């Protein structure tokens, strides 16, 4: 089919939005749309026009829907969907190389007296047991004091919910075209990207299911180009520090 014809492109986009483009044709169109911004524009054109009709009247969903969304996102239960951009593995050799550097780096271990606060508590009035579990959960923490930074990043992990939270105490002094990338280090030497450290404020991801949270866990930070490591299997920039995760009391 000749996708270059403007009329045809318009027609396909409109039928994609209307929903009458189905099966293989729909899949093909989605592929094309990903590569072709003008097709995407056509699709948006229709989404906005049909959206303007405002034909769907709001209907409040039952409360339990939100509860289940929260469970699917934040709880363990084996069906957690990891929210991690990249999973990267790297050999033991690599880590031997920077082990010395990491030791020399300023590593502040924070044994935090604060327990993980149940941020969701007000949202779950009908599920006290979930809140209770969060309050009681053992957290692991690491405080990352990076070179050339005034503030520090506090990493906390709740094994129970597999939530990893990072809080920056001060805005990062990074250049615009740089990012800090956070890595999970497994006992076997493999590393997994957990995403980029927030330049300021707080940020949270879910740990991928294959990562085991325990007392010997470690995280590391590398300095990368904006957007994170360019390498396939690990940091492409210098590793600035590594820190153990310490159980909070």
């Amino acid at each position, binding site marked *: 089919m000749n996708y270059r014809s403007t009329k045809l492109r318009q027609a396909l986009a409109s039928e994609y939005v209307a929903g009458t483009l189905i099966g293989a044709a729909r899949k093909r169109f989605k592929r094309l749309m990903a590569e072709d911004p003008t097709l995407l524009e056509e699709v948006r054109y229709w989404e906005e026009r049909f959206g303007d009709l405002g*034909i*769907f009247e709001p209907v409040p969903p039952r409360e339990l829907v939100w509860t289940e969304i929260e469970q699917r996102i934040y709880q363990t239960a084996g069906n957690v969907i990891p929210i991690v951009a990249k999973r990267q593995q790297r050999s033991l050799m690599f880590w031997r190389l920077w082990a010395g550097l990491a030791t020399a780096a300023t590593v502040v271990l924070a044994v935090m007296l604060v327990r993980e606060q149940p941020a969701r508590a007000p949202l779950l009035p009908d599920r006290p047991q979930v809140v209770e579990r969060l309050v009681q959960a053992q957290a692991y923490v690491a405080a990352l004091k990076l070179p050339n930074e005034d503030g520090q990043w506090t990493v906390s992990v709740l094994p129970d919910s597999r939530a990893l939270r990072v809080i920056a105490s001060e805005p990062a002094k990074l250049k615009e075209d740089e990012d800090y990338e956070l890595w999970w280090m497994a006992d076997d030497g493999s590393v997994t990207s957990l995403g980029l450290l927030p330049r300021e*404020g707080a940020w949270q991801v879910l740990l991928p299911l294959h990562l085991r949270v325990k007392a010997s866990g470690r995280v590391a930070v590398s300095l990368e180009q904006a957007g994170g490591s360019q390498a396939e299997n690990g940091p492409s920039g210098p590793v600035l520090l590594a820190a153990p995760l310490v159980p909070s009391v």
Partner: protein
Amino acid sequence: MADAEHLRSLLHATARGDQRAFSELYRATSSHLYGLLIRMLQRRDWAEEALQDCFIKIWQKAETYEADKGAPLTWLLSVARYRALDLLRVKRPEVELPDNDEEGASLPPLTLQDEGQDPLARASETQGIARMRECLRELPTEQRQAVLLAYYEGYTHQELATRMNAPLGTVKSWVRRGLARLREALDR
């Protein structure tokens, strides 16, 4: 309805993993998404499942929303609509008749609830329709109905043919021509 700027900032905060923003986003928009889903899917269990899927996706993909994609609510509703279409394609086999379904008795009507009524008549009960409605009104009746049934009820060509009691080829051309004329009218 929450204003666009506020929703935009909630989406951006959600993209950074801010749970509170995500929860507020849900409070502000879930009834809009659910209204669409219950209308298209016509079953509470499907609509609730779809709503969950949508917000999981929004939590995961909030960073793919860009301000230039237009109004945030439009984007959110698109997420819901495409999810509903996917579910309909999987769960409602083409040309399915209620009698053939095991749950026949509990199955809601697959078609317009007000049979014979122009879907547009129901559309007119709500607001904010002006321009698009004008253009839709200019379409021949069959084209208009085919487009609206496809869009708002998630009908495939085959289902439209059954519903509108017309040959498949005819129905396909109603949709195609209807959309093309709509496009011309909107661009005028």
